[in-house]
């Protein structure tokens, strides 16, 4: 009797007890546990990889496929462009995912998904099998909407710097090389795009640099949207008070083409604009692997998902999260939100692979800090809860809001946020 009770208790106590016995600790390979493959090691994918391992008591095998050698954060990267932070400040190794959490990291990218055989094919030639696939491929740019960007050399000269990395530093170098009295023009696409307040924060960062180093220079914001899409009054106050005579904002400027040879932007309705440094953020869609796998069912741009599990509405056993998804109302495409997607998806994937029901009441928040100078910050915050009738995430009435004014205390909290989310995602 006692022995039988013990077995029952053991199996009821941990659904993953069986895997635990087979796989032991955080060792890689050689296990018979279920297999999860995560594509993309950004805020969404890295978080999902870590939390699937943690929440399965290290019983589910996780392979993370990421082409970059380390994680480079988009949040805080505008401060590298402004000159107050370095690339090292925004770069984190993947080592802890491997050493502490036993994630199998493959430095490569996925060229094809076979949903019937449940394998992903890598550029390097190998195939990786999965029971469930988590795609977090971020965004790719719709360069075809700006034909001149396809000319030889155009993309090396007219930068987006909207994926933190080599272009972040290259844009900083262009600004340093620009003579005083020059114009930096920033083109913003129609929403939705990655990081709604990001372009306006970047304008502040460049303006602060100009105010100190090149006071005769201008920041010209050319926004395809009618008006500032996020924290509008707070950014406009910063431009009017701190950067008067430096920043000029023009709404309803939808860019249709770029002439990289002459640094000229062309618009749907407005006159051409020529600048010393042209920074064009093109319109975006889900990462290429999601689009070419037929998962981008919304306008052929974004991937529709079940918000309880982040499983694709187009393909079973494939989950999509982060900036690639068709967002719920008032849900931003942000690193913070991608991290939340990663944890919600991880819990669901662990439940589904162990014969349990996924959680029915997801609630998570978004917190987004923007630096209006190298020290002062404004935030926007929101709380999102699952609505069972509408089957989507809705903001909780009465919750959320923005800063009353830019302040230095939130500048310190913004850096604390960065340290904590980097650790939650990668450590």
């Amino acid at each position, binding site marked *: 009797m006692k022995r039988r009770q013990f077995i029952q208790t053991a199996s009821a106590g941990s659904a993953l007890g069986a895997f635990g016995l087979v796989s032991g600790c955080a060792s890689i390979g050689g296990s018979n546990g279920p297999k999860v493959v995560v594509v993309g090691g950004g805020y969404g994918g890295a978080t999902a990889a870590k939390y699937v391992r943690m929440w399965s008591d290290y019983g589910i095998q996780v392979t993370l496929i990421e082409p970059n050698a380390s994680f480079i954060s988009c949040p805080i990267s505008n401060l590298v462009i402004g000159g107050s932070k370095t690339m090292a400040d925004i770069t984190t190794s993947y080592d802890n995912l491997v050493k502490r959490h036993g994630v199998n990291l493959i430095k490569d990218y996925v060229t094809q998904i076979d949903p019937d055989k449940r394998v992903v094919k890598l550029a390097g030639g190998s195939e990786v099998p999965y029971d469930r696939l988590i795609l977090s491929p971020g965004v790719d740019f719709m360069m075809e909407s700006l034909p001149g960007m396809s000319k030889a050399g155009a993309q090396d000269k007219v930068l987006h710097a909207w994926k933190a990395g080599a272009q972040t530093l290259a844009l900083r170098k262009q600004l340093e090389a620009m003579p005083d009295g020059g114009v930096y023009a920033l083109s913003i696409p129609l929403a939705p795009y990655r990081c709604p307040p990001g372009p306006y924060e970047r304008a502040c960062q460049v303006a602060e640099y100009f105010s100190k180093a090149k006071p005769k220079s201008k920041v010209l914001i050319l926004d395809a949207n009618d008006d500032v899409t996020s924290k509008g009054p707070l950014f406009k106050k910063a431009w009017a008070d701190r950067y008067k005579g430096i920043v000029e904002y023009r709404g309803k400027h939808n860019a249709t083409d770029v002439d990289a040879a002459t640094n000229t932007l062309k618009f749907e309705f407005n006159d051409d604009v020529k600048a010393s440094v042209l920074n064009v953020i093109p319109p975006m869609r889900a990462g290429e692997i999601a689009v070419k796998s037929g998962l981008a069912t919304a306008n052929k741009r974004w991937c529709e998902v079940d918000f309880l599990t982040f499983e694709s509405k187009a393909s079973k056993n494939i989950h999509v999260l982060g900036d690639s998804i068709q967002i719920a109302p008032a849900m931003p495409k942000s690193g913070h939100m991608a991290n939340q997607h990663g944890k919600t998806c991880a819990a669901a994937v662990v439940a589904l692979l162990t014969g349990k029901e996924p959680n029915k009441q*997801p*609630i998570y928040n978004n*917190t987004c800090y923007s630096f209006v100078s190298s020290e002062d910050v404004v935030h926007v915050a929101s709380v999102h809860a699952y609505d069972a009738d509408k089957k989507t995430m809705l903001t909780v009435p009465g919750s*959320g809001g923005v800063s009353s004014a830019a*302040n230095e205390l*939130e500048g310190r909290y913004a850096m604390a946020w960065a340290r904590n989310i980097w650790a939650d995602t990668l450590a």
Partner: protein
Amino acid sequence: MKNWSYLIAAVLSVAANAQAQTNNTPDPFQVRSWAAGCANCHGTNGRAESGNETLAGMNKDEIVKKMLDFKAGRKPATIMHQLSKGYSDEQIVAIAAYFAAQKK
């Protein structure tokens, strides 16, 4: 006999309350995920990096009081007065219990 029936009624009532409480108690996996939503700023399982408060191992009642004070506007904040309003009192109690049970 009267005393007996009173006692039985009392026991049944307690049992019914316990049953109701069980039904209202959120699923532990759901609570773990709610708490994970705080980790972006307060660290995985509430063990924070420098600059933000560690919630792991904190007294449950203290967390609940702080959150309810944020929610009611009794405690000044930069952001928590806005985030706390997104959670019901019951959810706050459940999340606080989760963090109180975590190792510091």
